[in-house]
């Protein structure tokens, strides 16, 4: 695989599809949450409107350079993650820039946005941001663990670090998905997944009243809009990785939409059922439930 | 004969040491040591003694030719002289120290001279 200029419009196309689908997904999931609470929920276009409004705000303030760059880092992380992972297996158009790096790149690029965001929030000088970051980072490090272990189990299983090859190995009927060939790893990975989706029960770092929504408390207007955009893209990007590693990938867009929706649904369902964990509770949760499963999955591969 | 002398010497040594270890008075200790070194001297001399022989002086009674068979071992005698003199020197020194100590500390009790320890 190597670079050709045509890949840039292709990648932009992928990005557009994922973005639109992401907006839709976000709305759907919110609506589902509302329905679970007996409400009607937001309108289907609400997410677009909110985004547009935020981009259109007239006044802005800035706390400094990093405050400015934080959202940029954040969104770069999301967009980059999408672009470094092949979206549709077997499609030349939607391979994106996966030639630049393998699974390891995807694993570590996740941190890029987090880091930048945390820096931006930090520069606002707001203690609530700092508290939120503390909680978020603490929880994320614990949640990443079962995921990373499961990922490693999978790459050991298929003896490759290339996402494309892992997907290739899962082709040929759903029984060859990692979900069925290595269920323990998948369970471990899904536990980690819950922790990184910023949903209940693992969303205490966004506590709206105690530390008014945590890290982004000072962000507004276009800053917030960039972050919202990322909030739309990033879960999809992450789910794409999960889908590719554990659920056989997607060979065309309908399958992609379906699988992403179903995986997204997992976290949404858990989120509407369970109340919040304190941070140390969630750390313990990941270490007690996720970690042993992850270790087990590595050992039995 | 030799055994008696030697035993006497050793007993003196032990007595002297006992005295030196149990008396806390410095002067008594010095005296005890004198006893012990006397015992040592006795042991020294008794080692050189050989039954039935005479003093190692080559006078008329002991002609040079037969000296090998008729005199006792002269070396311990030479040694004991040195030992005595040295013992004396040390004793004198100890006494001087004792005097000085007494002048400084106003006591002759060695168990009280313990400002240097640990």
């Amino acid at each position, binding site marked *: 695989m190597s670079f050709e200029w045509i890949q840039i419009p292709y990648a932009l196309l992928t990005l557009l599809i994922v973005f639109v689908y992401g907006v839709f997904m976000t709305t759907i999931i919110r609506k589902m949450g509302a329905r679970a609470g007996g409400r009607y929920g937001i309108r289907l276009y609400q997410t677009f409107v909110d985004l547009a409004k935020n981009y259109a705000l007239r006044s*802005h*303030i800035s*706390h*400094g*350079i990093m405050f400015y760059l934080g*959202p*940029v880092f954040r969104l770069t992380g999301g*967009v980059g993650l999408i672009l*470094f992972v092949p979206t549709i297996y077997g499609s030349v158009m939607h391979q994106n820039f996966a*030639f*630049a*790096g393998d*699974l*390891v*790149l995807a694993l570590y690029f996740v*941190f*890029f946005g987090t880091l930048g965001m*945390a820096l931006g929030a930090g*520069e606002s*000088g707001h203690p609530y941001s*700092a508290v939120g970051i503390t909680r978020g980072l*603490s*929880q994320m*490090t*614990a949640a990443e*663990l079962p995921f*990373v272990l499961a990922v*490693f189990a999978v*790459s050991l299983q298929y*003896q490759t*670090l290339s996402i494309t090859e892992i997907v290739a190995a899962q082709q040929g009927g759903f029984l060859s998905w990692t979900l069925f060939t290595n269920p323990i790893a998948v369970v471990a990975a899904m536990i980690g997944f819950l922790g990184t989706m910023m949903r209940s029960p693992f969303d205490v770092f966004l506590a709206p009243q105690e530390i*008014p929504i945590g890290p982004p408390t*000072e962000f507004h207007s*276009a800053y917030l809009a*960039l972050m919202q955009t990322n909030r739309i893209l990033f879960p999809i990007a992450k789910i794409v990785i999960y889908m590719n590693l554990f659920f056989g990938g997607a060979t065309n867009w309908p399958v992609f939409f379906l699988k992403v929706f179903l995986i997204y649904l997992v976290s949404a369902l858990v989120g509407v059922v369970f109340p919040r964990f*304190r*941070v*140390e509770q969630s*750390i313990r949760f990941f270490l007690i439930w996720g970690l042993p499963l992850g*270790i087990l999955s*590595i050992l039995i591969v | 004969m030799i055994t008696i002398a030697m035993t006497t010497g050793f007993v003196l*040594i032990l007595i002297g*040491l006992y005295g*030196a270890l149990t008396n806390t008075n410095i002067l008594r*200790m010095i005296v005890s040591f004198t006893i*012990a070194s006397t015992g040592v001297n006795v*042991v*020294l001399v008794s*080692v050189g003694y050989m039954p039935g022989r005479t003093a190692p002086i080559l006078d008329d009674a002991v002609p040079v030719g037969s000296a090998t068979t008729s005199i006792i071992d002269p070396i311990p005698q030479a040694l004991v002289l*040195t030992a005595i003199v*040295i013992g004396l020197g040390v004793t004198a020194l100890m006494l001087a*120290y004792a005097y000085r100590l007494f002048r*400084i500390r106003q006591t002759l009790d*060695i*168990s009280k*001279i*313990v*400002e*240097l320890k*640990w």
Partner: protein
Amino acid sequence: MVSAIFIIVVGLGAAFALGLLKDSWRNGAFALTMAALAVMSWISISWLGALASGAAQPTDILTAGVQPPFAINLRVGLAEAGLLSVITLTGLLSALYLRDALMQQGRRSMAVLLIAIMALSGIVLTRDIFNLFVFFELMVISTGGLVLLSDDERAIGAGFKYLVVTQVISILLLVGIIFTYHAQGSLNIDDFAAQPLAAKGAGLAFFLLLMALVLELKPFPANGWALDIYESAHPGFSAIFSAASGTAAVYAADKVLATGGAEWLPLATFIGLFTFLASNILALRQDNDRRLLGYSSVAQIGLVLAVIGQRDILGDQFLYIAGGILIAHAVAKAGLFWISGVITRRELTAWTVLRLNPPLVVAFATFLAMLIGLPPFPGFYAKWELAHHLVAEGRVAVLVLILIGALIEAGYLFRWFGLAIKREAPVARPKYAPGKVLVIYAAALLGWYAGYRWGALSQYDNLLQAMPLMVALGFLLIEGLPARIKNVIAIAALCVWFWLSYGSFDPLQMIFGVIFMIGGAVIFLASFHETGRRLGFYPPAMLMYAGLAMLIVAESSFAFFAAWEVLTIGSYFLILRGKKSEPHALSYLMFSLGGAFAILLGFALAAGGTAPLAIADLAQVTGAVAPWVFVLLAIGFMTKTAAIGLHIWLPGAHAEAEADVSPMVSGVLLKAGLYGMFLLLMTMGRQHLFGVDLTYVLLWIGALSALLGNLMAIFQEDAKRLLAYSSIGQMGYALFGLAMMNHLGWLMALMFVINHYVYKSLLFLSVGGVAKRTGTRDMYRMGGLIKLMPLSFIAVLIGIITMSGVPPLSGFGGRWIFYNAIMTADARLPMVLVFLSGPIAFLYLFRLIHTIFLGQLKDEHRQLKDAPFWILLPQMIYVAFLLGFAVLPGMALRRVDAYIGEHFTEQGLSWEGLTITSEFGYWSPVQIMIVIGTIFTLLFLLLLALNHKAQWVKQFNIVYAAERPFRPETTHFAWNFFAPYRRALGFLLAPLVTRFWGAITNALHETAEFTRKLYTGNGQTYAVHVLVFVVVLYLVAGGIS
């Protein structure tokens, strides 16, 4: 050549002649004394020179014109000449030193001094056992006289105790002599050897004789009297008592032991080791300098006795080894006592006054290094040879005990040095008598000269002729120059050395060489910010670099070990310079020396007695000993890399060091340990002990270090401690990579070597610069510095991105190789720990940058400027390098990859085009950089288009639940930043390791505290001790007949 008998003649003659002088002609008397001592010294030295050069042969001096054994004869051999030189020179210098006391007390005391030296010479010279007794008594009595030179009235009591004990000893001695004579029919020592004693049933006599001589060596516990003398006597005399008397007594014991046959040697070994260990432990509790020196003297003599106990296996090296230790001890101890004489108060902290006189500090350090046997002093060569001989003959236990004792000794001696360097010093510089100071310098010079001689005599290269070491020592001479000039010279020296030597480097050496030399030079750039003379910085720093330079080129185990010790000692002095670094520098030294001793033991085991061992020959070590060699060497190297369990020195040492020292000891020094591990694994490979693969153990250690180091780092409030703990973690990664024993694992370790050097130096420098400006290292006291110190911020930002392994910077390369490496490794459990530690690193890194640069600016920091230019300059170099290395990792790694390929069959990386490909995955740094850069730029432009009119606000313009912040201090969320983590995982932080080492040191201290109660101060009790000593040994030896 003047006959050696003239030593005695001149001494005695001058002593008698003094009586002729008027009591008031004290100057004349003193001149006579000095002249006599000078003649005695000259005779000794001329003999030494002649014998050493082969111009003269060992000579017997007959008295009375009759052959021995019928008359007393004296002998001058090499050993005798050497010891005589020590004794007479000590006497000469001490006399000069004692000038005031002697002048005050008059000619009698001078006569006593002369006789003392004469008697000590006699002890060395004589071959007649009874003559030995006479000289002994002379020594005893003259000691009794010289003790009186002290102003301290307690000395009288000590002198009396001494006399009491010597009475007991002389009783034993005489009884022993006469019965030995009876058994042998001769008083000549040489005759004893002809007929074994036991054959004639005179073992007990010999035992008593030996005991008497050994008791003169002040064995533990029968040595309370000696300690009292050391404590109270005039230091000038204590120098004689320790250096000269001890030397003579040791030689006497050796003379007699030599005749007793091998069967008596274990007894001597036992007594010597027991004394060595016990006295060193006891010294731990001393706070009186002279008493401490006393314990140390006793211990050193014990060590020599233990070495004498090994004479059956040392062969013709015996003199070299025992002499090396003895001379080092004599010079050092005399020097230390002399220094103690110019210090007015007796507690150890009073030595701080030395700081006002830097050359004295150098002398002090010289003496300490000599005592402990650090290179390039004689003790070092002796220790090395001794270890090899002991191991070759299977006496490992003896060696281990010696090393433990030496470690304890190093502990209290360097604790003392630390006190002297770090505690508050008086302001007014005291006036020292020039004569006294001169004597001290003379001793120090003699020490260096002895080191040079021993080096020349050794079968290895003379360390003092090693180029790097000479350069480093040269910095002692130019200490007076301004710091900046010295800095230029230092940088030039490093670069020149690299330029001279890089031609012969293989790629591995090249990487380490560049880090050590060029990397060191870059860090030195930061030192330009220091103005003034910066005393005491360059010699240790250059010593450390000299050690590192020698380490890389070392081909034999000796060169390696010597380099190791040089760099250890250099870095110790360097670390000690930090503000509150006293305890940390000490624990650093303790662990490092412990590690060095482990290395020594390992090399000795590996060599199996056939020194010198080429490093490459480690590969040939096989059999049961091989795993032990591996274990010992690994432990030694891991003390330097601060693997978990051996890490407790690191945080303090690195954190407390100066701004430009921290990167040296962290970025550069830690790599020495890794270099060692590389060599070890490269040569010895996998070893199995009790069926366990040792590399598997290393894997666990590495993983645990990575996890716990990182975990501890996140809870630090002190920025430099945080970085220090992170070093533990990072070294854990590298160790883990090495222990994987596959191609990519090693490549990853190397990647860590390079990266860790760069980013840790970078971070330490920036944090150091910030700490310099803010005057604190506590992160919660900082905050909001980004606007004031933007360059430092950028440096830290780049540093932490690299370190956390986030693409696109080069830290990611390390992670990528790591993942590829573990794909083929078998051990999966330890990997889990490494996985866990990765994200944790993220936590503390974020904390570092957030708490310092973001958040709320404090009032007192409002007007800070960015770090000084010279501290920033290397940072910017590092930043540039990191960016370059991120894009082109191949520029360093390609060759190494190929080089490592020689050691492993499996495939390495493929470096086709822009993409780096492994068996399992691929990675294209350039493309990653371009993609990320493009996205980032586009988004940034978008934001700029939307928000370019943003109002810039100030620090309190934050939403605060409709209130406003109170003060910056209460608004900066920084302290206990990761409280939830502490609640969840805090149990992992239980300081088990610290407690473990603390328990050991406490146990030693408690033992010392308990045991020293033995020394009640009562002379009678001391006499009892002497008898107990003899009786117990008698019983232990099973009632010798």
